[in-house]
């Protein structure tokens, strides 16, 4: 098939490659590791890509962020704007706000970069959340992957703070209101609150001249460095432990089925990076996000209706709206209202999330190692609790937009808030029960959505019900085993199902 010329070119290339790798090996002893890296096997499933999408969002955030940092001016010195955006001409504003206006209107390609950066942050958080959901519902956090769960949740937390700090940098009316609320939340912490808030802001709100310099340092150095470090650890551990996989034909707890990293998987992954970039930069150029020139510069004595934070902070803003008007006052001290929804609630939520791998172990009395994933239906209780948490989260997020939704639905925001207050209790219960029931029903159906169709004869009985008879056992070399692999027996408990081995009967062209 290949010509003589091609073969001699290949020989030459191999010689060159040998030379280059030898050079590296002479100095680093790298051949063994590199070989194992290139031969590393990754299982493939669409849901495994979501974490990758988050990683590529981070790459794009770094690239666009570095560009924006070249133009941003973290200064609260007040200047009068004169520039191409006429509606703001002659208005006084901080240099921070003016510099973001300049990025948007005076720096060529600046607007695309800025909007792409914001879109990337929004998608980054969505991908992280989705990835976390995938890990949760399939039990991928179980031993030996508890450390990576902890690192992952910390990544979520830091990414959230990183997003909020970036959202606050332009010093526009919207983000300024957000900062005001955060100042009040910090101030509400018992005993140290006022002291802490004054130290962070460099004085009373809106803070001294150092505040935006601090925020900028946090946003463009501290948190990104933390994210990069945590992400490195996350990937290193994944690399060492190898990826989990769904149960399926030929898959056991002790083997790994997938394609090698080099070359196909690596090139596919690069294609994914390109698609992520296409979506983010497409949105960045075509769909407006955070038009700060519409909001105007921040003035503490102003605020406007329709103030919504970015979606991933919405649940906290919603919690502030739904929390009843309680404050605790006694002995000359008080615990102010924002403490409960602003500090206590997220504190509890993240404590439970961090502790989940250990809660789950006790719930299922399962301290075993797992490389094969659960089907969500096989763990109805976990799935129901996860769905309940999601409904709670969605309820709070909706609450952060009560004024907008109320306008749209033509109901008063008072009524809507009451509905969502009740909803935050009833919604999770209903959602959990529905999910539990759905799990049980799906178990009865016993159709594995991630397995290929099972061969067999379908017969209809006299009452009209359908039954599958005599599932074929892959007699043509096709993976079509009809039985469950590795203890997924639908009783909600994975016991010692090891050793149920199905041999992989796939030749090179048998797929």
């Amino acid at each position, binding site marked *: 098939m290949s010509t003589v010329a091609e073969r001699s070119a290949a020989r030459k290339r191999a010689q060159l490659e040998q030379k280059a790798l030898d050079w590296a090996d002479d100095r680093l002893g790298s051949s063994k590791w590199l070989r194992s890296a290139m031969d590393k096997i990754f299982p493939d499933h669409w849901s495994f890509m979501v974490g990758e999408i988050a990683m590529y969002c981070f790459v794009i955030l770094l690239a666009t962020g570095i560009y924006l940092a070249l133009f941003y001016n973290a200064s609260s010195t007040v200047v009068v704007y004169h520039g191409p955006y006429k509606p703001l001409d002659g208005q006084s504003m901080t240099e921070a706000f003016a510099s973001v206006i300049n990025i948007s209107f005076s720096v060529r390609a600046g607007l695309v970069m800025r909007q792409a950066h914001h879109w990337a942050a929004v998608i980054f958080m969505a991908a992280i959340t989705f990835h976390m959901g995938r890990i949760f519902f399939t039990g991928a956090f179980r031993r030996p992957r508890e450390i990576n769960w902890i690192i992952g949740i910390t990544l979520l937390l830091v990414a959230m703070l990183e997003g909020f700090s970036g959202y606050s940098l332009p010093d526009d009316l919207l983000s300024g209101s957000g900062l005001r609320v955060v100042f*009040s939340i910090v101030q*509400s912490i018992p005993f140290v609150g006022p002291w802490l808030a004054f*130290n962070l802001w460099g004085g009373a709100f809106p803070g001294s001249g150092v505040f935006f310099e601090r925020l900028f340092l946090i946003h463009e150095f501290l948190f990104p460095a933390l994210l990069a470090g945590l992400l490195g650890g996350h990937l290193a551990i994944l690399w060492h432990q190898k990826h989990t996989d769904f149960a399926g034909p030929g898959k056991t*707890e*002790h083997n790994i089925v997938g394609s090698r990293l080099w070359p196909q998987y690596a090139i596919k992954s690069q294609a994914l990076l390109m698609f992520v970039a296409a979506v983010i930069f497409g949105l960045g*150029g075509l769909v407006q996000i955070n038009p700060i020139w519409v909001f105007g510069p921040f003035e503490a004595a102003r605020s406007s209706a329709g103030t919504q934070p970015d979606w991933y902070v919405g649940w906290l803003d919603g919690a*502030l709206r739904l929390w009843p*008007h309680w404050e605790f006052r006694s002995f000359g001290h008080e615990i102010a209202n924002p403490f409960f929804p602003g500090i206590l609630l997220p504190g509890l939520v993240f404590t439970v999330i961090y502790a989940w791998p250990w809660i789950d172990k006790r719930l299922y009395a399962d301290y075993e190692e797992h490389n094969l994933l659960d089907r969500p239906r096989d763990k109805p209780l976990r799935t129901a609790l996860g769905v309940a948490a999601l409904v709670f989260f969605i309820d709070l997020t909706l609450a952060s937009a009560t004024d907008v939704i109320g306008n749209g639905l033509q109901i008063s925001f008072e009524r809507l808030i009451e509905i969502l207050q009740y909803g935050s209790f009833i919604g999770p219960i209903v959602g959990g029960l529905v999910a539990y029931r759905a799990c049980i029903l799906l178990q009865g159906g016993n159709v594995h959505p991630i397995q290929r169709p099972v061969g067999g004869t379908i017969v209809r009985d006299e009452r009209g019900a359908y039954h599958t008879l005599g599932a074929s056992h892959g007699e043509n070399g096709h993976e079509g085993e009809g039985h469950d692999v590795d203890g997924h027996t639908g009783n909600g408990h994975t016991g010692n199902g*090891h050793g149920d081995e199905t041999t992989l009967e796939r030749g090179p062209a048998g797929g």
Partner: protein
Amino acid sequence: MAETKFPRVFTGAHGPEDGAGETTPWPDDVPPDQDDTWYPLRDDPWRARRMEYVIAAFWAITALCGLGLIVVYCTGGEAQYEGWLLLGAFATLGTGLLLWARYLLPGHDIAASRGHHVSDPEERAAIVESLSRGTDSLMSRRGFLVKKVLVPVGGIFGVAAIFPLASLGNRPGRALYHTKWYSGARLVTEDGQALHVDDIMVDGILTVFPEGYINDSASAAVVLNVGGALVQARHGQADFEVVSGANGIVAFSKICTHAGCAVSLFNVFSMQLICPCHQSTFNILQDCEPVFGPASRPLPQLPLLVRPDGYLIAATDFVEPVGPGFWNRSGD
């Protein structure tokens, strides 16, 4: 499988039964009977060549989009064009890569042992030995250095390291208890206009600051003319309102007692002030008591007076801290 305290994972389809797991557990050991050099168009050179052209065509579009981006930049930049071109460039680049990987690159699924992800028991024992070599000589023989000296010394030095953090900001002191309002301060608008008692229409509302402190955020107040309507004042605050002819003028802090946003929405029909951030609603005619939402305290009222020349002035500062609560708010 026998339960051990640290179950090691090396059995499986290609585990110790065939020796692969034991001898080379790491890196991934691909058994020799599996071939993954196959790819969909391997045995069909014509279709493979056609696929090459398809990929090349996609990447040609990438290049065209790149040229377009250069042209758009040089002609002044335009976000909409840049968006389409970036979308096109990245999408075609990605599509080309995906087609290449999918049809022309080997990457057939293979199975391998997961290998060990834990160390051998001997290594686990050995590391304890290494660790205790150090801890023995540190703790058993020189235990007092650690327990009695290093811990307190480290504690003191550690406390010393905390002090520089106090430089980050002023201590709150009395800052949260007072605003810039002072006895005799004229009420001025954002533009520096001092307010006369007749300047506000009945049912009118204005944002005001103490004269000389325009835009001091904590001092922001709203001043309203409620006309002849009766404002139920809190105990001892009945004289905070200025009544002059048909005007009844009251002023309240504009900083929400919930989370500190500006209470900037005014419903004239229900005589309510509403905070746009979290919808705390205050009834003006009831001394700005919160009637809905998360706020739990009324907006503090500013005691007003009229100067002989008709200008509105503050009698004193607010008589209580404005804005959201904090730990020792009521401690004076």
